[in-house]
């Protein structure tokens, strides 16, 4: 880490004054809002100096007034920019789980009373977004952070920055809300096919070949997975026709066990990836499945909540 980066890190930690994570909602008080001129602001100051010298040299009384007015404008700009952040409330919003390798989006709820302002939300080296907050409104800023590893991804320290309205000064503050996002293991790109379906009680066994066992169509319901919509049928009909959902034979009665030991891999992460792929495939086929892990078992069920519970179990496997 370079010297400048080290110093910046120290400054930011000092500036926050509490050990992250901070309790939310965070109200930005004036002691943690900083102001410095931007490069444009420095250029403005130099320009004013030149204009002042010209006014003195040519004895322009009105020129003096113009320069002093613009100097006053610069000072007022400092206050306006400062005011953008002071008193602003930062609260945590949604952070939907993502798969490793994707970008996790953290929602930060920014609320401000007073006039309109424009705030940049910055995670160093990751993301830079800009939000306009109208008077008295609450706006969600979505901060993207690359999710590299499975498990909990904590939102790093966020810089809230603004140079609104004139761009002459930059005002900023650091916030470190205790916000985290679940990162599922990355699904394996090439995984063995789903294991065989185990007969439940009656001993009836047959190989289930997944989606080939098409059983028929029924009317689409909003909760149905988009994967099961009969898109080809929909394409043949006209736009006003209702969507149909494909039903599969395997969706009824048989239970698929997705087993830690069944995954053909040596190391934990590869195994987790294969399991994640199987879970997604099983959900896509509308199966009912259970998950067996060394630490415990998730009883068979189907649907999105079950899928997410299973993926969460994988994500947190042997983590912390």
């Amino acid at each position, binding site marked *: 880490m370079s010297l400048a980066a080290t110093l910046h890190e120290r400054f930011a930690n000092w500036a926050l004054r509490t050990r992250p994570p901070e309790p939310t909602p965070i109200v930005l008080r004036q002691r943690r809002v900083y102001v410095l001129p931007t490069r444009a602001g420095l250029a403005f100051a130099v*320009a004013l100096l*030149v204009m002042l010298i010209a006014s003195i040299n*040519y004895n322009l009384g009105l020129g003096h007034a113009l320069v002093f007015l613009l100097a006053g404008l610069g000072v*007022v700009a400092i206050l306006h920019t400062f005011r953008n952040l002071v008193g602003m409330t930062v609260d945590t919003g949604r952070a939907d789980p993502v798969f490793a390798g994707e970008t996790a989006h953290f929602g930060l709820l920014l609320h401000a009373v007073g006039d*309109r302002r*424009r705030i940049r939300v910055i995670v160093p080296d990751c993301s830079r977004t800009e939000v*306009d907050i109208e008077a008295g409104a609450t706006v969600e800023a979505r901060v993207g952070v690359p999710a590299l590893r499975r498990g909990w991804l904590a939102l790093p320290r966020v810089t809230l920055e603004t140079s609104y309205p004139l761009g002459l000064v930059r005002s900023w503050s650091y916030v470190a809300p205790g916000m985290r996002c679940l990162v599922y293991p990355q699904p394996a790109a090439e995984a063995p096919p789903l294991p065989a379906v185990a007969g439940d009680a009656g001993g009836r066994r047959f190989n289930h070949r997944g989606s080939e066992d098409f059983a028929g169509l029924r009317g689409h319901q909003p909760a149905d997975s988009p994967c099961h919509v009969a898109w080809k049928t929909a394409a043949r009909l006209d736009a006003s026709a209702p969507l149909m959902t494909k039903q599969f034979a395997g969706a009824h009665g048989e239970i698929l066990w997705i087993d830690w030991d069944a995954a053909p891999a040596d190391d934990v992460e590869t195994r987790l990836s294969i399991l994640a792929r199987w879970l997604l495939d099983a959900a896509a086929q509308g199966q009912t499945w259970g998950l067996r892990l060394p630490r415990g078992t998730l009883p068979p069920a189907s649907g999105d909540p079950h899928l997410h519970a299973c993926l969460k179990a994988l994500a947190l496997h042997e983590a912390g």
Partner: protein
Amino acid sequence: MKPVSSALDPVQCWWLLGCGAVALAPLAPHLPFWLSAAAAAALALRAWLIHSHQPAPSRWVLSLTVVPAVVAVVTQYRTLFGQNPGVALLVILLALKQLESGDRRDAFVVVLLCYFLLLSSLFYSQSIPSALGLTAAVTITTAALAAVGDSGQRPARLLRLAGLMLVQAIPLLLILFLLFPRVSGPLWGLPRDAFSAQSGLSDTMSPGSIGSLVLSDAMAFRVRFAGKPPPRNALYWRGPVLTLYDGTTWRAARFRVSQQLPYGQPDSREFAYEVTLEPHNKPWLFALEFPDRIPAGAVIASDYQLLSAGPVVQRMRYDVASRTGGVPGADESWSVLRLATSLPPGNPRAVGLAHTWRRHGESDAAILAEALAFFRRQRFTYTLDPPALGKDAVDEFLFDTRQGFCEHFAGAFVFVMRAAGVPARVVTGYQGGEINPIDGYLEVRQSDAHAWAEVWLAGRGWVRIDPTAQSFPQRIEQNLAAAIPAGDRLPLLMRPDWSWLRGMRQRWDALANGWNQWVLGYTPQRQRDFLAGLGMKSPDWRSMTAALTALCAAVLLVLTGWALHRRHRLDAAQTLWLRAAARLARRGLPRHPWEGCRDYAERVAGDRPEIAASIREIAALYARLRYGRADAGALDDLRSRVAAFRP
């Protein structure tokens, strides 16, 4: 929400174009025509590019354009340095930058250039109307700066924001303007072209030269007398003294200068006054005849003309005192008197007339009396439009046309005096002036320009003779308008039927004078006087800086208080609701953080049935005010209910 991008959208481009146009407009009349036209063309091209969503021209095309533009400026002005070429280069820069501007950085450069150009427009005019125009232009430019940072904003709101910020900057402007230690410029030598366009008296006089000046209503100088002003017929403001005559033109002779008065003064009453002289690009200062105390830094010439150290290129103020009735020069040197009697050949009739006087009269004084009688007798016409005169101009004026203006009278009079052997010379300057009833200043305009004569009499010295006054005493007793025949050309404001206009003009002039004295003429001297008048002891730059810092800190404190105060302000309904909740909390029923207002009210109602109705009513009103549609009376209703709420 959007990713941060620095490219400008069309609305921002329109803003930049607008502020460029606003900055260029006041300069256009002062630039060479080709440059104004080229800048306008560049702006029009930019407008077309924005309108048709075309990309800006590439950078190297623009760079190539710079070269011929700079060459053109050099060809126009013969130099790259100085005020006018500097402004021309800024204009070129702005025009090209307009075409280029593609991202925020370019936009910022454009805005800065606009501020520079607005300052440079003050080279040409600093009047009150220009100041009003400047205010509007600064507001628009600042709004453009705000638009660069905020694309989606409506123009009206940007203008309002810029206006608000500028209004907030006014206290700082006033403090800095009054207290920033002023340095008297120039810091370095001004380029020669700095002050090229000013009118006023010159150091030569030929027929028609003063007549053309008199048609101008422009201010020459303003005078504030310490006491009662002298009578109007004593208001002879001495300017260049013209001794040399070549048959058509009168010119100034060489003179010596000194800081000592070259004459003794009588014990007559002294008039002290302050003159605010408009720039005229010549070194002479004007004072009543004859100065008794000369202003600091000025000198007095051997022909009693007051001179400053250099050309008066900006409005200047000086204090001077005069005594009227003095007749200096009793011991005038022989060489000066010889020059004051020399004449070119020609004008035989005038010379003949003078010779007859010389033959009749014994003394110079007697000859003078003859000449004055001649000027009273001849039926002259006082006019601004005299017929053109030929080779023997004096003869033609005295005997043929007999129409002329003060320079004809003074010139002819001095000519005949010299022809009779009496030393005489022409004095130019201003005669009279008008008291502005609004602010009490005596205003002397170019239309008061005048020429009179001075005759040297042995034992007495130089005696002022006004030949115009001999023929047309109204000119001196009243003004030009009284002396000129009805229907003749007159300066607009001297026309008798335009008195209402003159009243307005007087008000305006008083305003402009206040502006000149306090804004444009706020010099180091005036600053010290003003601050001393406010009670500041020995106002030097140290005490001024200290006061400046203290006052700026105070203003900043107030502004910061405003900035932070607004942050924590709750709306009225919320304040009332919290007051009611605080009263309940004191009775042991605090609101839980997770409770909404209705839930809280229900819980309170359950615990304390006797106040159930009032707390339900208050909660319902509050909910309506905060989250729903409330009518106008709801807030007052809530206020009275909370006031009466005693749990």
